[in-house]
């Protein structure tokens, strides 16, 4: 129960003024610009876009600045802003096969058309702090360029599909369910699950994925392919009567190839998990693919071994960090009346119990 209490206005105003001052920090230190955050903290920006479910690097950078680097708070700001905007429509599904790839690797085929392209990765770095970065003003030499090949980069799963060695992807409804327009409801079909996973908290999705690797609903994944790059987004424009390319987005896509021995309903073949996330967000995309695969036990006729990652309600109801934060943090708000009634109750019960004990002792 909440009761409106007046009297906190001055304290709140002063708290906000102090917050603004603390956000700015030491004024002897130069203020961060939105462009600096966008360009130099790009992976934080990507995470806020993915979990905020809104692709706009400048807005995400602004949210990070406003939130003093608290990324969940920044995601909250983006979600709140998004609700103020009209939606013009939905795009055609993006064609990730036509992605202009910065990075594309496969853990299943060494020699594949288009090759293994590492891109700007942390892999193979030694994870030693680089104190050279602490010295400002150092010029960064431009990275070496090679001769870009015009070879297409076909999806690895396409090779397996040609031999029927991997389960085909069924068609779905042209208009998928949308959890920004209707409350999450169960059973949740795969398109709805994928939407919830791609905007879910990276830490939560990572831990769920990790739990499957450690044996809680194990499904033996290989990273068939991981690709990061730019795709164009096309949308029908009703007043024109045709589709135009409305923009470009950077995406990370992970396709896992999973061992599968067959079931009552399916022949032995590989199965798939799928991750697709805004921005360069590799850990999240791999995690999403593992959790997607774990959640597919029912449609693939597998046993439910009771693993947390197989439980769609558990995973999807707890993946959203804005919802989780809202409910978790509301308990710090005033509950004076609630608590007052609890206090009355415990005093009364306690008094009765003490009186009973005293009477027993007297007898």
């Amino acid at each position, binding site marked *: 129960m909440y009761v409106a209490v007046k009297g906190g206005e001055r304290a709140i105003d002063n708290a906000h003024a102090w917050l603004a001052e603390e956000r700015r920090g030491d004024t002897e230190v130069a203020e961060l610009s939105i462009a600096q955050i966008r360009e130099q903290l790009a992976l934080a920006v990507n995470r806020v876009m993915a979990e905020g*479910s809104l692709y706009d690097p400048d807005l995400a950078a602004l949210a990070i600045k406003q939130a003093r680097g608290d990324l969940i708070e920044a995601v909250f700001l983006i979600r709140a802003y998004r609700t103020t*905007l*009209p939606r013009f429509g939905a795009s055609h599904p993006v064609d990730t096969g036509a992605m*202009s790839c910065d990075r594309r690797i496969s853990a299943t085929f060494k020699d594949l058309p288009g090759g293994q392209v590492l891109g700007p990765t942390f892999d193979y770095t030694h994870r030693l702090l680089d104190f050279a970065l602490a010295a400002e003003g150092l010029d960064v030499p431009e990275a070496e360029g*090679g001769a870009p090949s015009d070879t297409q980069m076909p999806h690895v799963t396409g090779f397996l599909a040609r031999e029927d060695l991997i389960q085909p992807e069924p068609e*779905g409804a042209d208009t998928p369910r949308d959890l920004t327009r209707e409350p999450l409801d169960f059973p949740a079909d795969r398109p*709805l699950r994928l939407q919830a996973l791609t905007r879910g908290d990276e830490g939560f999705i990572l831990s769920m994925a990790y739990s499957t690797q450690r044996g809680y609903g194990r499904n033996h994944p290989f990273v068939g392919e991981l690709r990061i790059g730019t795709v164009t987004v096309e949308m029908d424009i009703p007043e024109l009567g*045709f589709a135009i390319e409305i*923009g470009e987005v950077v995406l990370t896509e992970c396709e896992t190839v999973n061992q599968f021995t067959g079931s009552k309903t399916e022949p032995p073949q590989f199965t798939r998990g799928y991750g697709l996330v805004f921005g360069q967000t590799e850990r999240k995309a791999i995690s999403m693919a593992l959790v997607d695969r774990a959640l597919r036990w029912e449609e693939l006729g597998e046993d439910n071994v009771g693993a947390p990652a197989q439980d769609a309600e558990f995973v999807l109801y707890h993946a959203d960090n804005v919802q989780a934060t809202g409910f978790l943090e509301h308990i710090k708000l005033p509950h004076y009346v609630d608590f007052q009634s609890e206090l009355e109750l415990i005093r009364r019960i306690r008094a009765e119990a003490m009186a009973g004990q005293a009477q027993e002792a007297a007898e």
Partner: protein
Amino acid sequence: MSNSTMEGIPQAAARPETEARRARLSTLAKAPAGRLLALWSGWLGGREMPAHDVLRPPEIGTVMVRGRAGATGAPFNLGEMTVTRATVRLAAGAVGHGHVQGRDKDAARVAALIDALCEGGEADALETAILAPLRAEAEAGKRSRLAKAAATKVEFFTMVRGENG
């Protein structure tokens, strides 16, 4: 693949003028706002903005971006992106629609003006002054990233071990 089943508007057999407009609007939508405005003011060269009515003032909104499960399967909602759109009509009657990625209202209005001017017969001049440079810059940016990516491509070599090598 099932990409041929586009929902919504049936994809008309593209007439050349439709294709030209589609290409133009796509270039404008993807252009960095700063570059678009700079090229536009270069094209104006100090002249006044062409006289026009604003049929739809610049409006910021979103487009839900969709993907497909497993890249080829059922469509799903990936998340939204910001888009700004505007519609103008020139004094001579040509109507232009502008859509740009992001939240720049000036860029959306300029995109609509460029579209209207092209519809009104100035397509060749605007192609040279604005659209061709935007396309060239976008292509150069893309080639530069692809070149850097190519330099990180792994060239495997095999080490022969054992006696039967």
